[in-house]
């Protein structure tokens, strides 16, 4: 996905997509980390995002309106290990697409294997590692999907600030998540041969497939945390379910881009989540950081179902492993 973004920058008529995060909610001590919309988070759980929809003006030249609709299914194999599948359907409005009359289809399929390395309830800290794969040629040719697979080893973390001193009690609802990945294409170059239908001339395009550093995260302020762990102000219940959030998802070219005019691209996404017992909803703005990332502010929204809470004894529990460890009474 990210390499495709770089190619969009390079060749203009190619396509670019807003990366959609593979997020899952996570509970670490007092802290509830919600599923994020754009930047992958450390959560490992049984969940279903149905759907995540985004509408924005992409980075193509000329820029066109793009609608992405993604479904994300996360399934725990063990309590600490999950597999995530995320198909995304894209529609490019006119004058997008190879013929300028729009295009639709699935992007290359993205999968993630994620493992929780460390969890510290006292300090509301969690670390996970994962391998994200975007599989070659699994999407629509009309979207000019990558013809190579991209593997991205990724590190995720989450940290809540509930351990701050009393003097800054108001800051305890803050939490951050972070994601750092290194995207490695399965082929270092892509060679495309084109035959002119009129003249029969053959042209060969040989372009490198750059490697990228993917980085981002979120800053969140949890009103549920404020009510249940810091100070219950007696606010209306609706406000006690809100988590204002700012996400960021960026990609920086690292290697194999000699001769290419590549820059860091990405989006900043301010918005708000509403979290309930069984689901959450979220909406965020999509603010491109430069022209190579898009041309105007878009929007992304998500309905996210907590399968572990909806179906705790069937599809919402790990495939392997015994019952959840009981609490130890004091």
């Amino acid at each position, binding site marked *: 996905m990210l390499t495709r973004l770089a190619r969009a920058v390079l060749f203009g008529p190619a396509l670019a997509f807003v990366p959609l995060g593979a997020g899952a909610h996570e*509970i670490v*001590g*007092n802290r*509830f980390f919600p599923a994020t919309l754009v930047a992958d988070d450390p959560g490992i759980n049984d969940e279903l995002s*149905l759907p995540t929809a985004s509408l924005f003006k992409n980075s193509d030249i000329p820029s066109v309106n793009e609608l992405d609709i993604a479904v994300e299914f996360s399934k725990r194999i063990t309590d600490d290990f999950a597999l995530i599948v995320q198909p995304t359907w894209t529609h490019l409005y006119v004058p997008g697409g190879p013929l300028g009359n729009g295009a639709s289809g699935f992007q290359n399929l993205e999968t993630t294997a994620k493992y929780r390395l460390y969890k510290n*309830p006292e300090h509301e800290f969690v670390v996970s590692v994962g391998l994200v794969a975007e599989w070659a040629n699994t999407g629509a040719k009309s979207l000019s999907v990558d013809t190579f697979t991209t593997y991205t080893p990724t590190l995720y973390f989450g940290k809540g600030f509930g351990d701050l001193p009393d003097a800054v*009690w108001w800051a305890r609802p803050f939490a951050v998540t972070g994601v750092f990945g290194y995207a490695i294409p399965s082929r270092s170059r892509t060679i495309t041969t084109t035959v002119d239908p009129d003249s029969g001339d053959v042209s060969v395009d040989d372009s490198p497939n750059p490697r990228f550093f993917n980085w981002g995260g979120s800053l969140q302020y949890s009103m*549920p945390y404020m*009510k*249940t*762990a*810091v*100070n*219950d102000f*007696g606010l209306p219940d609706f406000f006690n379910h809100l988590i204002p959030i700012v996400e960021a998802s960026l990609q920086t070219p690292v290697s194999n881009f000699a001769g290419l005019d590549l820059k860091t691209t990405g989006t900043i996404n301010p918005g708000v989540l509403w979290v309930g*017992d*069984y689901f959450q909803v979220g909406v965020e703005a999509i603010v491109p950081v430069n022209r190579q990332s898009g041309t105007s502010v878009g929007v992304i929204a998500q309905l996210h*179902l*907590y399968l*572990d*809470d*909806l*179906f*705790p*004894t069937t599809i919402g529990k790990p495939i392997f492993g015994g*019952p*959840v*460890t*009981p*609490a*130890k*009474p*004091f």
Partner: protein
Amino acid sequence: MKNKTIILSAFVLLAASIPAGAHAMLDHADPRVGNTVKSSPSAVTLWFTQKLEPAFSSAQVTNASGAVVSTGASVSGTVMRVGVRSLPPGTYRVHWKVLSVDTHTTEGNFTFRVGQ
């Protein structure tokens, strides 16, 4: 499109028909989280979002020096009651750890103040 609508509708109906059992999260407490009461309460009461397993759910209250000032906890449905000794003015921390009836474990803590 019709098939997608049918599948989505089926899922929503399925979700609505199955008795769910989410994590038991603290909903509210008395004394209220982070608030001050004029005099010592006889107990701290915690309301959770799900029913609790009494055998694996408990809580205790400690004073500013970490000494336990609670006398035991009892559970009834979604409510936990933690008895406390007569509390002099000061700040107290409630530590809770519970198991919901669907085996999800959660824990947390908060403070309240007496007479300050």
